[in-house]
């Protein structure tokens, strides 16, 4: 009886080992997390539209989108907060769907063309010739993945707060290596409370069409890897939408942080804990920091003061062309 049971247990143990061994060589594709990250907000947007019963609206939109493309729609790509460097910014985001010849992606999800909810963003993409100039839009996926060490000269930019107290900005990170490399993921954006701001009231979400960060460009699906030639970079935009009030209200002001231009400098981490030595007068602040794909160190951060809670909406990376190396971001 016990022998029998022992035998069964051993057989079961061996069977488990056999199952494990047989697939031990299966390893994840390193780009998987990046793809999932990009796809989740898109799927959420899709679900939300499905849920609000916009099936009919979808059909209308699906029919209308090609027309809008043809007519060249209202162009939001250089929106009010976009800043000067933006002329190329939005339009150089490669359009992943049918436009890119030989690109790695095949078709987008049916019924909801990419970036569907507002056709504006994709409009600018297709209005300009998709195969334009030397833009590495649909580069073959043969380039090596960008390592964290390849990415540097990171800067943070903040616009002044708008009337509602929302603050928009962006991080720019460049390929500082001598070779082209493929950005395999969007990296992370984190927000840290400082002073009386409350961490529990701060969240970071991906920007989707129709959310509260209205001044961000409508999300487009960016195919990864995003190929960055030497000196080129990518930009991750964000919008801070404050919510609620502070226990003791402080005047709203936005201060661009001294960006940690060299990614290896750990000084930026110091801003996470409230840096001010005078605790009584510490204004509430939120430090928004970007860490590129590949992990620490974080590349750049920006401090937004004046609110105690709210939401950071972030976008997917878009390419930024080469520019003469000016470390400090100056608006205008």
């Amino acid at each position: 009886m016990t022998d029998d049971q022992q035998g069964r247990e051993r057989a079961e143990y061996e069977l488990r080992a056999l199952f494990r061994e047989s697939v031990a060589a299966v390893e994840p594709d390193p780009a998987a997390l990046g793809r999932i990250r990009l796809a989740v907000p898109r799927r959420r947007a899709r679900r939300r539209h499905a849920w609000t019963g916009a099936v009919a609206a979808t059909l209308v939109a699906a029919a209308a989108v090609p027309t809008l493309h043809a007519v060249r729609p209202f162009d939001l790509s250089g929106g009010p907060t976009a800043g000067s460097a933006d002329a190329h910014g939005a339009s150089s985001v490669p359009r992943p769907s049918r436009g890119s010849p030989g690109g790695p992606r095949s078709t987008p999800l049916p019924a909801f063309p990419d970036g569907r909810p507002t056709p504006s963003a994709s409009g600018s993409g297709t209005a300009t010739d998709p195969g334009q100039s030397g833009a590495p839009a649909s580069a073959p996926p043969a380039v090596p993945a960008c390592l964290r060490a390849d990415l540097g000269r990171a800067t943070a930019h903040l616009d002044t707060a708008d009337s509602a107290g929302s603050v928009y900005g962006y991080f720019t990170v460049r390929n500082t290596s001598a070779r082209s490399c493929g950005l395999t993921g969007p990296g992370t954006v984190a927000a840290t409370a400082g002073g009386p701001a409350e961490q529990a009231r701060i969240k970071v979400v991906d920007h989707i069409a129709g959310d509260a960060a209205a001044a961000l460009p409508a999300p487009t699906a960016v195919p990864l890897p995003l190929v960055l030639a030497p000196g080129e970079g990518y930009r991750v935009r964000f919008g801070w939408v404050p919510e609620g009030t502070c226990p003791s209200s402080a005047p709203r002001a936005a201060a661009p942080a001294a960006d940690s231009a060299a990614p290896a400098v750990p000084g930026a981490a110091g801003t996470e804990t409230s840096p001010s030595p005078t605790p009584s007068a510490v204004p509430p602040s939120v430090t928004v920091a970007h860490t590129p794909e590949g992990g620490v160190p974080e590349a750049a951060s920006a401090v937004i003061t004046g609110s105690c809670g709210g939401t950071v909406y972030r976008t997917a990376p878009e390419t930024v062309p080469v520019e003469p190396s000016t470390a400090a971001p100056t608006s205008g």
Partner: protein
Amino acid sequence: MIEAVPVVSLPLPVRRSAASRMGSAAAADATGASVDQLTETYQAHYRSLLRLAALLLDDLSSCEDVVQEAFIRVHAARKRVREPEKTLAYLRQTVVNLSRSTLRRRILGLRLLPKPMPDMASAEEGAYDALERDQLRTALKGLQRRQREVLVLRYYADLTEAQVAEVLGVSVGSVKAYGSRGLATLRVLMESSHD
């Protein structure tokens, strides 16, 4: 006959605007955590789910698609993500469902992702071939779908019979029956391939 698949038709539980208007700490945690939670879940479970898919699927090339799609579905449904203790169960169930051929063909039709396989195959040709030739995987192909699912969930994913029953939506009795018949068949197939 296609089984009812709960993952496909899940409605979005919470709209963001509603959640942020509430402004309660709990709501903020729930939605705000999701991005980081995705990374956490990925690190904790992606590899083992990929291997689970490799055992459930005949063709290795769709494993990544299936598991990525499972992550996307589960994380796009905020309600699911807000129950971290159940996230793995949802993911596993979605992988099992998607691994069934009918559904898989549907995702591959939609395929939103570039195919990672060619690169991998050339880089690790040896490993890939070995996988294709693996005796157990070959034998599993000879089982009925249900039997295969039960064995893989029991002996690879280490689920109890009750848990397997829940994932597959069948009774514990059926799980026992599929399991014992599956094991017997597997033994025969493995032995015959030995000779």
